């Protein structure tokens, strides 16, 4: 069975015909060719598939697209400004070497963005708690922490 769904993705409206069991991750990658969200585990633990739905971090790998009909989705592709200026988080990650293979990076950037936009001065321990849904296997998290510390002043 197929469903008609309207999604606003990074500010652009899309009318899509999706399968019942289709996940938001499949819709974003296979229909809209937005590859920033990717599947790392398929069970919403690793966070590589994280996108923001109505401002909240969501594991798109288990999110049914038809259940976010009418919603607003933000992916990493929408983080930089239209003229290409990187978001301060993106810049901070590059400057501090807070990424290696970068498979986890979009998910971490979006989650951090959502948290810090809501509360720029959130205590580090709480920030880390809220980032515990985003795994990184390459960096050991050290430079990610340093980038997050440094970026607060620029937000």
């Amino acid at each position, binding site marked *: 069975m197929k469903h008609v769904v309207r999604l606003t993705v990074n500010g652009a409206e899309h009318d899509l015909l999706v399968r019942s069991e289709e996940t938001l991750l499949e819709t974003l990658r296979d229909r809209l060719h937005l590859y920033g969200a990717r*599947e790392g585990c398929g069970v919403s633990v690793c966070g590589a598939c994280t996108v923001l739905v109505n401002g909240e971090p969501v594991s798109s790998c288990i999110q049914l697209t038809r259940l976010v009909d009418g919603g607003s989705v933000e992916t990493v592709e929408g983080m930089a400004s239209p003229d290409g200026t990187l978001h301060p988080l993106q810049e901070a990650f590059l400057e501090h070497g807070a990424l290696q293979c970068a498979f986890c990076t979009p998910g971490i950037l979006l989650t951090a963005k959502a948290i810090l936009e809501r509360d720029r001065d959130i205590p580090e321990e709480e920030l880390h708690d809220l980032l515990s849904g985003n795994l990184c296997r390459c960096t050991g998290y050290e430079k990610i922490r340093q980038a997050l510390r440094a970026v607060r002043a620029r937000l």
Partner: protein
Amino acid sequence: MPLTVVGTSVPIAHGIEKVNGSLTYTINLELPGMAHVKILRSPYPHARLVRVDAGRAERLRGVAAVLTRDDLLRWDIDPYYGPMVRDQPIVAIDKVVYAGEPVAAVAADDLQTAEQALDLIEVEYEPLPYVLDPIEAMRDDAPIIHERLREHSTGFEDVKSVHWGVGRNVCSYSRVRRGDVEQGFREADLIVEGEYRTPVQQHCALEPHAAVARVRDDGAIECYTSTQNPSIVRDGIAGIFKLPLSKVRVMAPYLGAGYGAKTYLKAEPITCALAKKLRGRWVKLVLTREEVFLTVTRHAAIVRMRTGFRKDGTITAREATAWFDAGAAADVGPRTAKNGGYSMCGPYRIPNVKFDTYNVYTNKVPSGAFRGFGVAQVSWAYEQQMDEAARRLGLDPLEIRRRNIARDGDRFSTGQVFEGVAFSECLEAVARELGWDRPKPAPRGTKSYGRGLAVTVKSSITPSMSSAMVKMDEDGSIEVLTSSVDMGQGCETALAQIAAEALSLPLERVKFYPPDTDVTPYDQGTQSSRCTFTVGTAVGRAAAEVREQLLRLASEQLEARVEDLYLEGGHVVVRGAPERRISYEDLIRRKYHMRVGTLVGRGELKTEGGLDRETGQGIASAWWLQGAVGAEVEVDTETGAVRVLRLVGAANAGKAINPLLVEGQIEGAMGQALALTLYEEMVFEGGQVANPNFLDYRLPTVVEAPSELRAVIIEKPHPVHPYGAIGCGESVVPPTAPAIANAIADACGARVISPPITPEKILRSIREGRPV
């Protein structure tokens, strides 16, 4: 001339694509008319394959083809592959040897159809007894897993010293004999004995294995794949399908990490076989996380070690036996076991050694290359023994290591003389950074604090070979062509820096060409931390060839001797007369009298070595990975909970081409090794993997990371590399686990000899007063 690019922390290449999500991983590839693959896998760890009937699946609408053993037997191919022993069939043929082994594969118009088709494939198994432990697998009554051992026809030179098939289910065996251990033990005042086990664990690279392939009308194969070894994959596919290398093209986009999981043939054989069945149509395979757990693991190992110490802590002898668990296929295991085996001496002076190392088949997922490569499994043993000896002799753990540490002129277990090594510098650096001399925190309530050290040595594949080309365009820009694969470690960045420095060009004028075996020259693989050293040297030599051509052209055009010329900022300049200079662009234009032309340089490095089959003596490594780690932990003696508070790692980088990236490697290696030490274990029940997913196989998050994770870069250069650099991506993996174990023992006396170090094991060790 002072370095301008090498040694600076330039931003990682393709940084913008990495942060805006547009970096191309293999999983992103969409090619016209692509078919999607799903694999049917054996639920049995060992069984005869009685019947495989894909008829109903083939007739399902949307299914393009189903691959079974019938195809493999029908075609003129060699359906078995493996880098050292050809013991892996593309899909199972007469039997299955591990739960998860591919039995059939479907290519369909979409994944849902492919998934449905799996249920329609009829398979009949006749279960056989199975064995999961390598020591048990060697017993006379153990089931035989591979009736016949087939060697690879183009074997790697370094593996020629192993013995094949010595004993029941023994894939390979290697040994080291040096000095007289019995005499050494007679001279000892203390003998420390123990058994140390490492479980089956998984790399957990976040990007799963993926391959996209097509077979053209002329039979040529094109394959995009997330591999660390494009050249070797090409050779492997050509070997299976009996094609000349020129008819196989392997391209490696960026990898979402590898850590060794993506070495040698993995997703490619099935994908190419299905592509062969669907002549002309692209076929794409992406493994699920569960399937990644069923594809390759880190070798489990059992090490029994006996070390003799004098009263003053110096080691007189070491005798050890190691059993590496190959799983159901050899993969690179013969090398893992050999290298882990001879590394049992550690970075210490031990005149008398007797090592026996077995690489044994079991009915489990095949083990393969994993960052640390057998050394972590043995350093887990020897670095805990050092602390045990220190405790019993009343010596400080740092002091006992100082009294044994190997320096230039000392010998490795294979008799090879160490040159340019910095084991001592690494050890002292972590001791200093950890504050070894300062008192550790006092216990608070049920919380105790402890510190631990470890220092290790690892070899890198020797002999090995890498080649590179540098192509200069008519405007003086260059392309660097190598088959090195960037998986986040930053080899593209570092190699570009080397080429830029060698040719005095700004980085904007240097392009790193993505690995493509049609174009990029042979490289033995992005593994063994070898890229910076081996490929870096090849790139340096290729750039030097281009430099020679530029100097000769300039010598003519500027009417100066070659000896009086140097390169600076994209120009050739006359020494002492800097106004007499000419740009590369002008040099080339004047050569051809128009704006046309190309200069090409090529370079290579082939390292030499080899070991005696009986004594294991000889050259093991062209260069060494040297690393040390210091750990500070908090243990709650009531609950057994451990928190790693501080981890400091030091590695010799020779010369850090890009210090920020080198730090990333050291920090990341410790982070990964910390996870392996405290949290990870693949559990087998009834021969099946019980936890092949991230819900049950838990990786640490940012919350569990130590509050202090620090990298110290040591620079003691190597003479071969143009800038003295050596690799260090793996250097601090082996010392991390024992440093943590030693810190835990220091905190509360608990000694755990098998990771993961869980609270339960700590409490049991405290209660029972013995190693657990």
